Structure formats: C-alpha cells, structure tokens
C-alpha cells in the first residue's frame, strides 16, 4: 500500500456540506477561514490554470468572452503572487522510503475493462514505470504497449483539473451540493428519470455499488456504453448453453490452431497470456523440439496472421461461410457454402485439425458474428478440444445493465430520462453513426460527466467532475479468466480527481467516502492478512473462475449463417491497437508508437489490398471517400500487403481534436461510419478523391532486398540443416586491426528469438518509458527525427497479396568492433569494461559520424530540443521521467544502452552483498515487457547463463556479421511450421 496515498489532501468543502458534516458526524473545524477559503476564492485560484483558454467555445458569445477576460485580468494579478516553493528535506523520514531507491507496488490496470496485473516502480512517491506482474494470470510478467503509457497519462497536463459547472470552474463542494440536490430528487422520485451510463468494467465493487443504487432508486436505469464491446461470444453461449460463458484458450496445449479472424495475440483481455503460451509451444532449439502450427484466416492483417504458418486473407463477410463449411465438414455434412477458392486448403486444414484431435484449437474472432462463435464452439467440441485447449468459464462479472447507449438515447427521446450521469465513457466521440447522442444529451435536464479529460462529452455536460487516474485510485477488477485483483493508488490524486466508486457513493448519499473503505467493504471476506497479501501480490488468491463443463447442442440452437449479399466493399472496423476507442489519444507515446504492421504514427489510414488499390488507381496517402449507409468519411488510403480484396479496414481512435496532443494527430474518425456496434459492414463504396493526405510512417522500405537480414526456415528445413542461418552466408571475418577487448567481469549480451517475436511493440513502448525517450510529434516524425532507441523492423517477403511478414526488433548491437567508436572525434562513444558500447551525452558535440558509420542505424539524434529544461515551463509531464536516466538535450546522439542504469543498480547491490551478479538478475526494459520472452539478456562470460544457452542454439546468427562488427545482440532465426501439403500455394516454406 502506498505511503503517499494516505497523505491525501482533504477535499474542498462548501458551507452547505460543512454544515451538514458539523451536524451529522461532528468533525472538528478550526476557523471560518477554512470555510471561506473553499468556495469562491478557491475556485478562482483553481482557475488560474491557463487551461481555461482551451475551453473557449468555438464561437464565444459576448458574455462568455467578457467573463473570461475579467477572469484573466483578475488572475493576472494572482499569477504574479505565486512564489517558487523551497523544498525542505524530510524532517522525519517516512518508513520504507529511501531516497534514490524505487519502491514497487502491485496494482492492476484496465484494458477495455479487464484487468492486467502490473507492478509500478515509484520513485519517492512518483510512479515512473509500469512492469507486468508475474503473479497475475493476464500479465505473467509482461505488459503491452498501452500499459506502459499509464504513467504518462497520469502526468498528462491536459487532464481535467477541477469540476466544471456549465464549462466553468467550480469547486468540488459546489459539485457535491449539486449532487446532493440530485440525490434528494432521486430519493423523492425513486430515481425516476435518472440514468447512469457506465463504461466497460469488471469491477466487483462497482457492480455491487450499482446494484445498491438500483435497490435505493428502483426507477433508476443503468446503461453501458462500450464502443469496443464484442458481445458475440456471450450471445452464442447464451444461445447454446443458456448462460453467459466465455471461452478460455490454452495455446500451450494446442498442436494445431486455427484462427477464424481472431487476433488473439494482439487483441482481447487475455492476449499477453495467450502470446506467452503460444510462443512457449513454438520454442525450438534443437531438431527434436516440436512446435504447434497456426492457420490464420483474417479479414485484416494482424500480428496473429503475421505469426501464422499459413495465412489466408478472407473478406469479413466470408468468415461465416468458412465457419459453416468447417463445421459441416467436421460433422460429416455436405458443404454448401464455402467459396471454391478456399476448398484447396480447407481439406488440408481439416485433416490437420482432425489429426491433432483434442490438441486442436479453433479460435473465433471476438468481433465475429454469433453464428461463427457457435459454429466454432461446436467444432472445438467435435474435435474433443473442450476441456483441453478450450475451457468455458462464467464471464467475469460485468454489471447488469438495462441497455446500451442506443436504448438510452431512445429513452431520452421519449422523455423517460431527464438526468444522466456518465461515468468514464465518452459517448459523444464514440457513439455510432445514426445515433444523435449530442441531440439526445442536449434534451437533458442534467448531464453529469465524470472522466479524466474535458472530452467531447464534458463540453455539453452541466457538471463535469475530474476522475482519478488508475494510478490514483482504489478499485478492483477481474482478469480475462475471472481472477480478481485490487487496484491501489501509487500517488494521491494530482488534481483532486474522484474514482467512480466515490461518485457512485455520492449518488448513493454518502458524500464523504473514500474509495478505499468501499473496496475494502466489498472484500470484507478477506481478513487483514489476506487483504495485505492481495495488495502485495496483486491478485486475490483463488478468485479465478472455475471451468464449466458444457455440451454443444447438435443443431447449433438453430443459428444459421446470415446470408450476406457481398456486394460492394466490406468494411472491417478495428480499434487502434494503442489508442483503442480514442481514450488514449492524448498519450504522445502511443500516438508515436508505430502500428505493428503499417508502422504508421500520429494518424490512421484506410487499409486496402494492393489489388483493390490498383483497381481504384490509388496509392498510399491518396484520399478516398468511404460511404456506407448514408454516412461517409474521407480517409487517406494505405496499401496493406495481405489485405483481403474489396475490403477496407478502418480504425477507431482518431479524428479527436480535444487535448493538446490529440489535436496534433491526423486521421479520420471511423465512428462516423459505424452503425450500432457492428465490427464489419458490407455494401460500402469507395470513391477516390483528387487530393492526398500525409500518412506518417517510420519505415519507408518494406523488402529485404535479398539480403540475409531475417533468416528463416521451415521446421522441416531446420531439422535437416539446424544451422540453416549459415546457409549461403560467407564465414564472417575474424581478423581485425584493433586489439581484442578483455572482460574480467561481465560481458553483457542479448539474444532475440525471431520465432517468438510477434511484433506487438510492447518492448518499444517499455524502452521509451524506461529511458526517457522523447516523443517528437508528427511533423518531426515525418522528417525522420523520431527517437525510439529500439525499433521493430517489419519486412514483407513473397507476393503482395499473400506475403510472409517478419518482425525484427533492432536495438543497439553493442558491437565488439564497433564502427561508431572509432569515428567519434571526442570520445563520446566508448567501449566499457563490461562490453557495452556507451554513449557519453555530455561529451557529445553532435558530429553524427557515429550514426553515419552505424550499419544498423540504431543511433538516434536530438535534432531539436525535444525535452524541456526550463524549470519555469516545467509541467506535470516532467514527473514521468526515470530519475536514473539522463534527459538528453538537443545536439547529442543517443541510443540503446542495454538499460545500463539497471545493470548499475544490480551491480551496486551485488557489490554490497559481495557476490557476483546472478544470471537473470539484470533484466532490460524490453526484455521485461516482452509477452513472448523473445529477448534474453545476460552475462556472456557465465557458462550457465540463459543468454549463452540461447546463443548456442544452431539458428543463432549476428545481423550483418560479414561486416565484422561482432554484435553482442544476436538473433535466433525464425522457424515456422507450415503444412507440407500446402507448401505449394506460394506460402512460407523455407524461404
């Protein structure tokens, strides 16, 4: 439990609440000043934040303008009064807090409402880095790219900092007063006309609170708005099994896997665990090792398809037919509906699945139709996979709701609802086309919005209350497998934000409640020891859901594939992998993190296949107009190799202009085209426009040019020639003019398994968080000034319609004979005693010769000042910096250091304890984040080190070894496991 969390400032109060408190619970108060200091004065002081200008309405009327001017005039005086604070060291050192020594706390971060366990590094009460929690089933020590940005969003200067009444700063006391009025109104009317709009959540406490509210106000309606909801699995389960079950997959037990448009490595609450299991089953180090085989049918290119041994592109509307065909084939029925183009591989696939039997696994795409899910349930049952590779559990307890946003808008239109309290969701950005939520909301008598940002929904709201960030909150949440875990604060709320629990408590009439007692109360079943253990470990033991045994009814409960016309263009909607529905649009790390396949940053594009692009005569960046059901959107096109023809992929999350970072990004808003909560649509049209838009990508060139960069082979080829990576490769030179280095202590080295790398970008995000890597913005990215120390190169090989996709993480190679070291005129890049190729920032004068001479181009240069060094300008965003890593100024070169600060920390620890650094003790940030454990790091001088064992694998090779740079970072060639019967279809064999 965080020390800091307890030192929270008392919330602002006003006279009304104070009086109530004085009469009710007899709190002590000191002076009237305390009361006087709350409402009026404090509101103005809070309003000192210049953010007020940003909220200036697009067309301010004279009155607003005059008010703002008046405020700024009076505040101009106030700003002059603020003095620099002098910082006094602790008089009494808090226990367990050693300056310079980070503390780690377990908590849980929400991913689309499901929990993923995290360990947060905190420096003097300042959370700076997110790591995975090895004890948590959804993390298993790994994180994804989005989780890494939790610390960044915490310190986001654009976060909402104060309650707003009709868009104007107000005190929290005023807000409570308004809520008190609402409570008394609801109490009188039993909640009639009131509604709550919640977002996706699995918090048991929240669910219980909602139930309590329902009990208190029987007429109160509760709606859920989750634009990324994938309800099909649940509906299929209701249809087949009569209850809302959800499947759990065990990829570590699967021999043959078929993904029916499922991106299980990149999407879904269990993706990190699934990726771990999937990679574990495919780890080949000697010819005797076995690996699973993955077939992927995809309606848009994903990282799962890139990892597949066989990948087939299909239009989203064809997946149902394929599922029906697969189901019929396995049931021995006549196959009617499978398009002939698929029959060739369907037979081989079915045989392979049958051969695997109970070790086979078919995964339906979460966004696919109810029928696909039902058919796949049946297929898995028929194969005998149930209970082995697939298990069903009760879906983690989402709160019971009365409907979705559409139902709510309808109720508003009928006048049944006049008051809405929005908790976290941002429906005015994420509402589907054809649903005029703005109109509906404008009819409301009272709209209360609770969220992290003054977002689209906060603008028209009568009241906006800032939410506490996940790292400031007490809460609880369930993981994909039902495991419950606690969310604990790492820091007191920076802007006096409140958690959803607190707001619900307020609506329930408890005005002065903290979230902690609410959560603790819900888990009253845990005694104090168990509670502490749950906080320490990050999970509540034995809270995972038990598998339920099911039987699939033979006729699929009457579900039939929908007859899709298949005319026109299919639209496939996807959530942006980093921004999701747009909620992280203000996180610069995520905006600037290249999308795994397209490598697009700071915007989105409409993905089309090469053939479709050729038919429409469009190229990358050409604007196309996509129209569907009366709505249309202009988007820049992007040709995605391997994309199904006559299909277009549109991604959510962009097109937002609220927030200073989000406003920088480009792209279109795909919600304008989406009806209801569909994930794909048919019958769309594409009309090319004349103009083009810039689409910024960090990788311009996609082919390997015949160079042995990613060396790859099929499993069969590997078994015949285990050292296939040496095939055709000239022996690397060994002689050098320079003397050999000698390492008395450690010699750090890294091995990266290209078979395990799924290209998820978690390592890049982790590297950015760990090493204070500056985001540079879209214009600089376009000019090639981005700063990521670690990049993941993505290469295509083979035909553009069905290419093989390879990922290759490229950090600094830390060459033994480093070309950069000899050319630096000022000794700014030097070899250390433990073999690192170190960059001395304050010695660098920026000749950039090192980068010119680096064949791997892993060095990054501060072309401009990307970090602020002006202490007067310093904002909260400075808080995210890792204090153990220098912040670089302009004009100096930087690059991967193998996380030298982590090495130093462990070395100091080992020297204090008078021992050697143990193997596996030093973990680099990229290695720690990696869900598939593709990265191994350690001391090459130790015979027993894991990295030495990895490097001893026959497929170990060094990138560009013919240059005699002798890299410390080596790669394990990619091994795939294609079906030899299908090898003739122009697919991955041994390359």
């Amino acid at each position: 439990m965080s020390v800091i969390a307890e030192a929270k400032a008392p919330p602002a109060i006003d006279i009304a609440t104070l009086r109530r408190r004085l009469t009710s619970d007899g709190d002590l108060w000191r002076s009237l000043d305390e009361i006087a200091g709350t409402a009026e004065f404090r509101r103005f002081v809070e309003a000192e934040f210049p953010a007020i200008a940003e909220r200036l309405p697009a067309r301010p009327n004279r009155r607003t303008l005059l008010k703002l001017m008046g405020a700024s005039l009076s505040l101009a005086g106030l700003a002059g009064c603020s003095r620099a604070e002098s910082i006094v060291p602790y008089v009494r050192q808090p226990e367990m807090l050693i300056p310079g020594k980070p503390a780690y706390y377990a908590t849980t971060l929400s991913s689309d409402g499901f929990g993923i366990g995290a360990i947060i590094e905190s420096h003097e009460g300042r959370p700076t880095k997110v790591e995975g929690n090895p004890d948590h089933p959804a993390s298993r020590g790994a994180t994804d790219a989005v989780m890494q940005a939790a610390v960044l969003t915490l310190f986001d200067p654009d976060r909402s900092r104060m309650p707003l009444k009709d868009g104007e700063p107000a005190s929290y006391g005023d807000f409570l007063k308004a809520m008190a009025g609402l409570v008394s109104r609801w109490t009188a009317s039993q909640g009639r006309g009131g509604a709550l709009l919640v977002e996706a959540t699995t918090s048991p406490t929240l669910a219980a609170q909602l139930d309590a509210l329902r009990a208190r106000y029987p007429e109160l309606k509760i709606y859920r708005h989750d634009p990324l909801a994938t309800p099909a699995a649940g509906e299929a389960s209701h249809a087949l099994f009569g209850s809302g079950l959800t499947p759990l997959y065990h990829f570590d037990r699967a021999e043959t896997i078929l993904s029916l448009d499922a991106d299980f490595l990149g999407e879904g609450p269990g993706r990190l665990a699934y990726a771990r299991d999937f990679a574990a089953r495919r780890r080949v180090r000697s010819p005797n090792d076995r690996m699973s085989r993955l077939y992927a049918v995809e309606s848009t290119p994903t990282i799962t398809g890139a990892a597949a041994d066989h990948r087939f592109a299909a239009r989203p509307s064809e997946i149902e037919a394929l599922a029906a065909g697969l189901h019929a084939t396995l049931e021995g029925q006549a196959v009617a509906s499978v398009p002939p183009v698929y029959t060739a591989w369907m037979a081989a696939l079915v045989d392979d699945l049958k051969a695997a039997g109970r070790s086979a696994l078919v995964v339906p795409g979460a966004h696919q139709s109810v029928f696909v899910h039902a058919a796949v349930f049946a297929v898995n049952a028929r194969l005998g996979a149930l209970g082995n590779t697939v298990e069903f559990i009760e879906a983690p307890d989402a709160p019971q709701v009365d409907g979705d946003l559409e139902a709510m808008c309808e109720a508003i239109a009928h006048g049944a609802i006049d008051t809405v309290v929005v908790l976290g969701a941002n429906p005015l950005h994420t509402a589907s086309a054809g649903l005029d939520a703005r109109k509906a909301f404008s009819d409301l008598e009272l709209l209360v919005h609770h969220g992290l940002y003054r977002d689209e929904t906060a603008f028209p709201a009568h009241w906006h209350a800032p939410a506490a960030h996940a790292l400031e909150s007490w809460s609880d949440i369930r993981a994909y497998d039902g495991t419950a875990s606690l969310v604990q604060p790492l820091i007191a709320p920076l802007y006096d934000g409140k958690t959803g629990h607190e707001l619900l408590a307020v609506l329930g009439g408890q005005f002065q409640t903290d979230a902690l007692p609410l959560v603790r109360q819900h888990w009253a079943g845990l005694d104090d020891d168990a509670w502490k253990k749950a906080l320490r470990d990050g999970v509540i033991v034995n809270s995972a859901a038990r598998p339920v045994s099911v039987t699939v009814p033979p006729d699929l409960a009457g579900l039939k594939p929908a007859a899709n016309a298949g005319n026109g263009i299919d639209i496939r909607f996807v959530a942006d992998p980093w921004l999701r529905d747009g909620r992280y649009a203000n996180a610069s790390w995520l905006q600037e993190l290249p999308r795994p396949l397209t490598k697009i940053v700071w915007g989105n594009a409409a993905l089309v296949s090469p053939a479709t692009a050729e038919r429409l005569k469009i190229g990358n960046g050409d604007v196309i107009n996509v129209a569907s059901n009366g709505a249309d959107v202009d988007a820049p096109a992007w040709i995605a190799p391997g994309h199904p023809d006559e299909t277009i992929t549109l991604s959510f999350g962009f097109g937002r202009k609220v927030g200073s970072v989000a406003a920088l990004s480009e792209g279109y808003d795909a919600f304008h085209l989406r009806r209801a909560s569909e994930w794909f649509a048919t019958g769309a049209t594409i009309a090319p426009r004349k103009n083009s838009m810039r689409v910024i990508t960090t990788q311009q060139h996609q082919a390997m040019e015949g160079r042995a960069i990613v060396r790859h082979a099929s499993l069969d080829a590997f078994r015949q020639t285990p050292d296939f990576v040496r095939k055709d490769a000239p022996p690397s030179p060994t002689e050098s003019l320079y003397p050999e280095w000698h390492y008395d202590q450690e010699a750090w080295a890294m091995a990266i398994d290209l078979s395990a790398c799924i290209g998820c970008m978690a390592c890049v995000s982790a590297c950015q968080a760990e090493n204070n890597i500056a985001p540079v913005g879209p214009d600089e990215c376009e000019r090639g000034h981005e700063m990521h120390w670690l990049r993941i190169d993505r290469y295509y090989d083979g035909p553009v319609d069905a290419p093989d996709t390879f990922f290759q993480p490229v950090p600094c190679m830390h060459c033994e004979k480093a070309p950069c070291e000899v050319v630096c005129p000022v000794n700014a890049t030097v070899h250390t005693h433990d073999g690192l190729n170190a960059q001395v920032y304050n010695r660098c004068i920026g000749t950039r010769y090192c980068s010119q001479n680096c064949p791997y181009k892993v060095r990054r240069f501060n072309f401009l000042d990307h970090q602020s060094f002006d202490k007067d300008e310093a904002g909260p965003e400075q808080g995210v910096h890792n204090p153990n890593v220098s912040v670089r100024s302009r004009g100096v070169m930087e690059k991967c250091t193998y996380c030298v600060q982590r090495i130093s920390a462990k070395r100091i620890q080992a020297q204090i304890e008078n021992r050697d650094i143990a193997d596996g003790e030093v973990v680099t940030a990229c290695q720690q984040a990696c869900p598939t454990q593709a990265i191994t790091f350690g001391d090459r001088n130790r015979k027993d080190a894991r990295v030495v064992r990895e490097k001893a694998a026959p497929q170990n090779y060094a990138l560009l070894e013919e240059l005699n740079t002798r890299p410390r970072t080596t790669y394990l060639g990619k091994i795939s496991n294609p079906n030899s019967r299908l090898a003739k279809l122009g697919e991955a064999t041994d390359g």
Partner: protein
Amino acid sequence: MADTSANSPVVLRGRHDFPEISGRIGSIVLNGRLPRHFWTAFFLCFLLVLLLLYSITYLIAVGVGAYGINMPVVWGTMISNFVWWIGIGHAGTLISAVLLLLRQPWRASINRFAEAMTLFAVAMAGLFPILHLGRPWFFYWLLPLPNVHMHWPQWRSPLVWDFAAIATYATVSLLFWYMGLLPDLAVLRDRARSRPAQLFYGILALGWRGSAHHWARYQVVYFLLAALATPLVVSVHSIVSLDFTFAITPGYHSTIFPPYFVAGALLSGFAMVLTIAIPLRWAFSVEDLITLRHMDNAAKLMIAAGMVVAYGYVSEAFFAWYSGEPYERAMMVQRAIGPYAPMFWTMLSLNCGVLQLLWFTRVRRNMPLLFAIAIAINVGMWIERYIIVVTGPSRDYLPSAWGQQSLTWLDFGILFGSVGTFFALVFLFIRILPAITIFEVEELAEEEGKLK
C-alpha cells in the same frame, strides 16, 4: 612554355612601364573610386552576408533539426558545403605554389586573387564543420587542449585529422598570401597620399624597403612556403576524403576517393577562378594583364581535372560492381535510379557533359560562354559533394532504415549566405589590397621584354 604554341594568346598584352603597372593596379585601391556596379554587387553580397548571419543565429537558437537532415542521413549540406569550399580553395594554392615551383610565369597576374580566393574559401569551409555540429559551441573539443574537462581528441577519428588538415591549410595559405603581399604593400605605402593609408599599408608592409637583402630573403621564404603548400594541395583534400572512405557506409568506403577528391577540388577551384576572373578583368579593364591566355590555361586545367573526376565516377561505379558487395551495388543502382537520381544525372551532365565543350579553343576563348560553363561546373561540383554525402547513408545496409533527407530554407540560407560572404570578402579584398601582384607583373613585363 609561353611560346610553345604559336597561336596561343600572350600572357601580357601591350607594352608597359613600371610606374604605369603599379599606378594602374595601385590606383584601384588608393583612389577608391570604384565603379558604381562594384558597389551594387557588393551590396547584393552584403545582403547575403546578412542572410548568413540570420541563418546562423537561427541555427544556434533552434538546432540542427532545422536543416533537412534526418535519420538515417544525418550528414547533409554542411558537409557538402565544406567539401565544396575546400575544393574551391585548391586552385588558388595550385596556381600560386605549384605553378611558382614549376616556374610558370603566366600565373603572375592571377595568383594574388587566386590566393585570396583560397583564403576566403578556406574561411568559408572552416565554418561548416562547426555549423554542422549538434552543439556548435563545443567545436573546440576537437582540439587537443589540456583542460579540466579531461576530454581529449579520439585520434582514430578522421574528423580530428580533418580539423588538423584544415587548420594547417588555412595557416599556410594565410602566410603564403601575406608573404606575397609584402612588396606590394610597400608599393601601396609609397604611393599612398593620405596619412591613414600610409600608416595602414606601412604597418602591414612590415618595413619592406625592397633592398636586395629583402628580395633574397623573400625569395627563400616564398619558395619554402610554396614547397610547404604544394603537398597540401594533395593532402588536404585527401584527408577530407578520408572522412568518407574511413566509414563503412556503402558509397563512402572507396579507395578512389583521395585522388578523386583532389581532382574534383581542382576542377571546382579553377571553375571558381574563372567565375571571379572573367568579371574582374572586364570590370577593371585589365584584359591586358589578365589575358585570354590565362583563361585558356585555366580552362585546360579544368578539363584535365574534369576528366580525372569522370574517371573517378566510372571507377566508383565499376568497383561497386566488381566488389561483388550487394550493399555497394545496391547503393550504386539506387544512386542512379533512386530518390536522388535527378540530382545524380544533373551532376553527370554538368561535370562530364558540359565540360566537354572545353575541348574547343573557340569555347575556351569565348568569355561569356566560359563564364557560364564555370558556373555550371560550380553547381555540378556542389551537387557531386551532396550526392556523395547523402546517397550512401540513405541506402545502406538495412532496408528498413532506408530514407532520404530533405533540403530546407536553412540549408540554402547558409549555402547562399556563404557564397555571398565569400564574394563580399573578395570585393573588400579588391578594394583594400592589390588584386593583381604588382611586382610580379612588373617582373613579367621585364622578362617578356614588354617594357616601354
């Protein structure tokens, strides 16, 4: 040699006497009544000086990101400007030192401004490695200065060699130029009417009285300095080329570079000599001192150097293919058909195509045409340097990192600013010092028997 070709123009036209020569050359400086177009041109150059100052201020304030450089092509116009300017300086040293040692009398009337050109070109060139730096204010860290920072140059880096080579070149060029100026400064001192001018030239003349002793010492020192400067013609640009050849980047790592760079330097240097001399002789009506013979010889040297450069291009391409290195080959192909292809072909057509016109005597003696060719070669050689700098890293080992840089206003601001500053300095030089060596022309007149 002056008489080897019967129909070649004379080195010195007409008959002269000593007072006439020293009076004519000296009066440009001492009277100060320069034609209006001189000042107009100087004003235009001064505007470019202001542009340079503004660009440098902007650069220091904002950072090198304001250039078009990026990752992977982190070297850009500052390096190509540097190589280009250093090259331009070479012709001056060649004319003054090498031709002096080879006793080529025709050099006499053009060596002074050629040396000045060298000096100013080196001054311009010296700016660019500093303006190239990410933190230009720390450029002195390249010097082996014992200091408390404990930084010391890393001697394996060609940039350190480069720094030393340029510093040597600048010093020797300055000394050589100043030594050659002494007798003329004394002439100006003696002919000056106003007290300030007498003082100014008197101090600069270091007490030169023209005694036989002085002349004997002068000859020894001047020839010694010439002997010192001569290897620099070869060494400076060879060392500059090592900045490239030392790197393993495809397109940089080539043994042809040192001679190829020296030849390129001479080509661009003579182009610049012509660029200055043609307007100079016209503007100041000294066509009888700087004659068609000079122009002809410079043009011949240009085509000689140009053919070596062309050989360099061929050899670069051939060895890229012959090495069998896929990276070198791909880079060379990409140079010809990749994003920089338009520049590459422009360069070839200027440096190899247009140059061939110089085979014709009529072209060599047609001043407007020769001037146009000289400008074309100057442009072509700048492009050549730019192509060398950027194409290698833009298409190196890992295709994922391939990319190209852009050119921003700042790249051009500094380039044109430096061109303007160079010419402004040339104008000031013409105004303040004798642009044609008085005593050597007198000596030439004597030797050619053209004294009245």
